[in-house]
């Protein structure tokens, strides 16, 4: 069974309706370590040793964060800067993360429609996530398509509940074994037949 580490970064968590619902669903799940970065490191003073140990102890790493200015909140970036050391995470001797699975779970205010070449944001979410994708690659991790909760500004309660159920299912599937080769080519993990099969039941 794959052990899952959710690195959660949200500076305004208490105000986020979507994320509160999402987190509530998965934070106490078996085999999942929910790691609330802003609560643990309010002064940005990240304990690198304990972060490395957490990474060592898990097989799937999830960067769960709101999509701020087409990227992650600063503490997540700080985490990447200080934890993913040369000679540990990358470089010739940096093999600590090799063959772990890695993905982004993001929430955006804008809908999927505005994130494309015709929309107001011009680029797709996948294109904006390129730095994360390449970071994972450089560290020898297998980067999976993101799981996205989009258009949170006017999500109905029902829609939000659907997302949370889907997120829970995804975590469950990641814990077992997804057919990674198949899903690698999806735009979003939300679209994989496995998840849609389960939720439609």
């Amino acid at each position: 069974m794959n052990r899952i580490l959710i690195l959660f970064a949200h500076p305004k968590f208490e105000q986020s309706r979507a994320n509160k619902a999402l987190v509530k669903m998965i934070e106490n799940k078996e085999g999942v370590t929910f790691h609330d970065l802003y609560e643990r490191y309010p002064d940005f003073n990240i304990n690198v040793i304990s972060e490395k140990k957490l990474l060592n102890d898990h097989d799937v790493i999830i960067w769960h964060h709101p999509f701020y200015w087409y990227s992650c909140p600063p503490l997540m970036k700080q985490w990447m800067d200080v934890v993913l050391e040369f000679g540990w995470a990358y470089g010739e001797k940096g093999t600590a993360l090799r063959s772990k699975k890695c993905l982004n779970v993001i929430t955006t205010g804008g809908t999927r429609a505005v994130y494309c070449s015709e929309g107001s944001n011009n680029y797709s979410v996948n294109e904006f996530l390129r730095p994360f994708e390449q970071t994972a690659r450089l560290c020898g991790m297998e980067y999976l398509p993101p799981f996205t909760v989009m258009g949170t500004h006017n999500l109905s309660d029902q829609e939000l509940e659907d997302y949370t159920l889907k997120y829970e299912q995804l975590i469950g599937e990641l814990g077992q074994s997804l057919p990674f080769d198949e899903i690698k080519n999806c735009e979003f993990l939300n679209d994989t037949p496995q998840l849609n099969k389960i939720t439609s039941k």
Partner: protein
Amino acid sequence: MSGSILFAAIVFLTGAIICVPIAKKFGLSSVLGYLLAGILIGPFIMGFVGDEGQDILHFAEFGVVMMLFLIGLEIEPKSFWQMRKTIMGMGGAQVLGTMIVSFLLFTTIGFDWKVSLIISMAVSLSSTAITLQTIKENGLMNTTYGASSFSILLFQDIIVILMLAVIPLLTDSEKTANASDHSDHTYLLENLPLGFQALAIFLSVVTVVLAGRYFFVPMLRLVAKTRLRELLSASALLIVIVLAYLMELVGLSPALGAFLGGVVLATSEFKHELESNLEPFKGLLLGLFFMAVGASINFIVIGDNPLMIGGLVVAVIVLKALILFLVGAVFKLKADQRLLLTFGLAQIGEFAFVLLSFAFQLKILDRVELDMMLVVTALTMTLTPILGIINERLILPRVGTKKVETRRVDHIAKSHKVILVGFGHFGSTVGRFLRSYGIEATILDNDSNRVDLLRKMGFEVYYGDATRMDLLESAGIAEAKILISAIDNSDNVIHLTKMVKEKYPYVKLLVRAKNRYDAYDLLNMGIEDVYRESLETSVKMASDALNHLGFRKYTIYRQAQKFIQYDEEGLRRLADKPKTREEYIFKAKEEIKQQEKQLEEDLNRGIIEFDNHWDSEQMRAAHNAPKK
């Protein structure tokens, strides 16, 4: 006229107070001022001081003893041991070289060989008092010149013992009959065989070292506990006098004994306290000593034979300077340092008075020879500061002076200097954190028990009351970049900061304030870096309380930062104008009212008043509004 001690004191003090400031005004060393004052009040010009000048000279020599004790305090045993080669090498070369050349000179001009030997001994010694005082005054102690001079002088202090031992051997046996009744040196060991004398001397040195460590330090700790400042002064004086007495008893130079004692105490926590206690005594006694030298110049002797005296003075200075220059060359001193050494030590020193009088008592010298050499000695001493000025103003600029450069290097070496005052709970945290960065602050604290403990832990802590300028000065405030005040007594804090700000305005002051009122006072004094001890900790406490209530840490953290900033701004607004305490309270009430209003506003607006970014509710509202 000389009947009253009070009158003599008035004469000497007045002389000093008038002449020294005048000398300083013209940029001359204070030594010259004292010497001139001595000449003025002496028997040949104003006649206030008569024959007792010699007695005063003898008494005032104690100033030299104190000076060597103080110098010893600044030299730790380790560095003293490192200097041993320089002391033996430079000192030995200088003394031997000078003796040979002057012996040849004096025999050539027709003196008996015994007389010439005595005189050459006297000539080879330089004046510790004048040289070191000048070096300290010019802040050159840490230069090569300073160290070389010091080594040579120290060697002379040691060798003078040997000289005093050798002189009696030069007497004809029938003359020695009444030699031992000279009053200055009643040696306890005089009648013992040489081997026992050597043993006694060795034992007395050991005694000084042991007494320093196992008797004087515990005694000082005991005295420190009484917290009576004058008792510490008394103890400091007692230590020096005991050392000098002990040395005189076994026939060693008291100055040397005091120096040894100083070295032993250099590693104790009382170093700075002893320094600042003895400094005024030393200064006064040295001043007295220089004046006595001036007063003892016998102008009748000069008048009788001006050419001979003048010639001898010039000859002595030239030959001493020449030997010093050569020694400097052999030991590879740079040109400017060598010149300073050459002119600095080219006088006959105060030991000559002792040697010559001793030889006179043993009837090796006659009255005429004694008077002549005493005058030559006093004149060379008087000329030293003048020679120094000539060197500094006329010669050094021509050889491309590097004086400024060496001092700058010196300055850089000390440029990280931090003085930390107060090492209680607050100060110790400051000190420990600085230490974690490799910054070792010089720490001053006035709790001797704590000082003792911390020294065991390897901190450089000194005992003393930091509101005394002299203590701060001996701790090195002149070279310090930062002074951190971590003491909690409000009055002391104000006193300390005011003092330092006035006298050393370029030293950065970081000051702990007990509460708002102290902070106001400090801000109004123009201190910018004021640290209220309770502010950050109480905000941190409130933050943790909020977290236990379930609020998010990061939000609290930002709120806390804002709050502290807000509070500091309020503090500075309030401190704007100096106020009496009543006004503070009145204004504080007003401020509280204002704060209450603002806090209410905060409440109404909620947390977002502080932190507006990425506010989902606002964005949701804006996003959804046009659709409605």
